[in-house]
């Protein structure tokens, strides 16, 4: 039997590309949340504009529901729902609860199943907590679970400090464990096989070598690159894996969470700052080779630049992933907007092509993050040999 490799690759790519469709097309992961969100939106809209919530046409209601569903997908959640069946009347959620850890003048630990998917008030040591449908956060409420709102629609209830293992935290732990087991195992397999890659190593070795030879060494330099390699490899595979998990039917959106990209960027900033050599600070506070008045102007700009760099890292990853998810979900929502026999194949085809593109983006964003981090590290350890007789431009 002769199997050509090409069709196999195409089939695998196609399967991966279909995965997000499964997650997004399955009838509303948390239909109850969405329904509540819709009524909330409708109520606040009518508040500003015209009439009561009941005046909305069927069309507008469906529109709001789709928007709410997309918004809901982008948010973190306190329980891990894989899929839901049974319709809006009697929804049955398939998934598992996650631990809720709150600090509110004392530690409150309980399982998120107490919230019954956001519908019930959870009681813990005499305090009552409820998940707000609007922003997905836990608030302290009275025994009935009532929220008070100001005129802008913001909840004014007291908010406990939330250290819960949410869906995102859970997935980060899973990916961390996966990376650890995978690469620890690969490391051992090299010893056993006499430094020859076996199995999964054949796939990962070229990637690791690429990061070393084409990202780390050219940007950081032969002399210093070794101490940054562990960070660059970790961040590359961490972001890549998280991005890929975002495309699976698990329906997670981890790298599309500002807090997570912000912490990755802060780590990069701290490493850049604390491993920086003398020349780096020299170039920030006393730029060589420019007239003295210019040095005073350049110092604050350069100092600001050190913060803007990690900030742009944060925004870039976040915005790319969020934009990808929103566009993908909107394309699938087209199916319901058209509501005709042409709509479904069209939206299916568009979503399929975009999913293929998203697989590329998942890799590309991990690459860009690693590349730019390496670039910043390179600037931090670069050694300039300033010679007053030479023109500065010759060194760059």
């Amino acid at each position, binding site marked *: 039997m002769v199997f050509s490799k090409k069709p196999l690759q195409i089939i695998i790519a196609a399967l991966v590309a279909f995965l997000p469709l499964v997650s997004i097309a399955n009838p509303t992961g948390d239909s109850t949340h969405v329904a509540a969100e819709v009524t909330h939106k409708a109520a606040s809209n009518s508040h500003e504009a015209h009439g009561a919530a009941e005046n909305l046409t069927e069309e507008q209601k469906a529109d709001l529901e789709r928007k709410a569903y997309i918004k809901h997908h982008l948010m973190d959640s306190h329980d891990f729902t894989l899929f839901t069946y049974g319709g809006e009347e009697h929804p049955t959620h398939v998934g598992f609860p996650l631990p809720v850890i709150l600090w509110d003048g004392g530690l409150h630990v309980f399982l998120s199943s107490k919230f019954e998917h956001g519908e019930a008030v959870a009681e813990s040591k005499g305090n009552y907590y409820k998940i707000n449908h609007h922003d997905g956060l836990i608030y302290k409420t009275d025994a009935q679970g009532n929220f008070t709102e100001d005129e802008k629609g913001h909840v004014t209830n007291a908010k406990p400090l939330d250290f819960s293992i949410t869906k995102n935290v859970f997935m980060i732990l899973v990916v961390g464990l996966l990376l650890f087991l995978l690469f620890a195992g690969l490391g051992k397999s090299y010893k056993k096989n006499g430094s020859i890659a076996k199995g999964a190593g054949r796939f990962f070795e070229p990637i690791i070598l690429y990061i070393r030879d084409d990202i780390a060494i050219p940007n950081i330099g032969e002399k210093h690159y070794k101490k940054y390699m562990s960070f660059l490899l970790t961040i590359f595979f961490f972001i890549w894996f998280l991005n890929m998990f975002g495309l699976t039917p698990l329906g997670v959106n981890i790298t599309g969470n500002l807090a997570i990209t912000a912490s990755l960027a802060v780590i990069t900033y701290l490493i850049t700052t604390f491993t920086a050599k003398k020349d780096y600070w020299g170039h920030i506070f006393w730029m060589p080779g420019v007239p003295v008045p210019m040095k005073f102007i350049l110092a604050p700009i350069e100092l600001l630049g050190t913060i803007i760099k990690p900030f*742009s890292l944060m*925004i870039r990853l976040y915005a790319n992933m969020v934009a990808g998810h929103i566009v993908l979900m909107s394309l699938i929502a087209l199916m319901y907007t058209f509501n005709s026999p042409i709509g479904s194949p069209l939206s299916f085809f568009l979503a399929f092509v975009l999913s293929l593109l998203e697989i590329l983006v998942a890799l590309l964003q991990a690459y*860009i993050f690693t590349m*730019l981090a390496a670039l910043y590290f390179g600037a931090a350890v670069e050694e300039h040999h300033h010679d007053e007789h030479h023109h500065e431009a010759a060194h760059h």
Partner: protein
Amino acid sequence: MEIPKIIGAGLVVIGAGIGIGKIGGSAMDAIARQPEATGKIQTAMLIAAALIEGIGFAALFAVN
């Protein structure tokens, strides 16, 4: 206050789009002239595109 913001963000995104388009086009030219330098050109292209993209996203953020 809302409309000027949106128009401004739109202008920034148009600018970023033109910028990335130019980078891509120039990279194509460069690769056509020197196919052996494809790898290096692609790397430089991606970095430049990513830096510009950051500005575009920052504008979208300001609107949000």
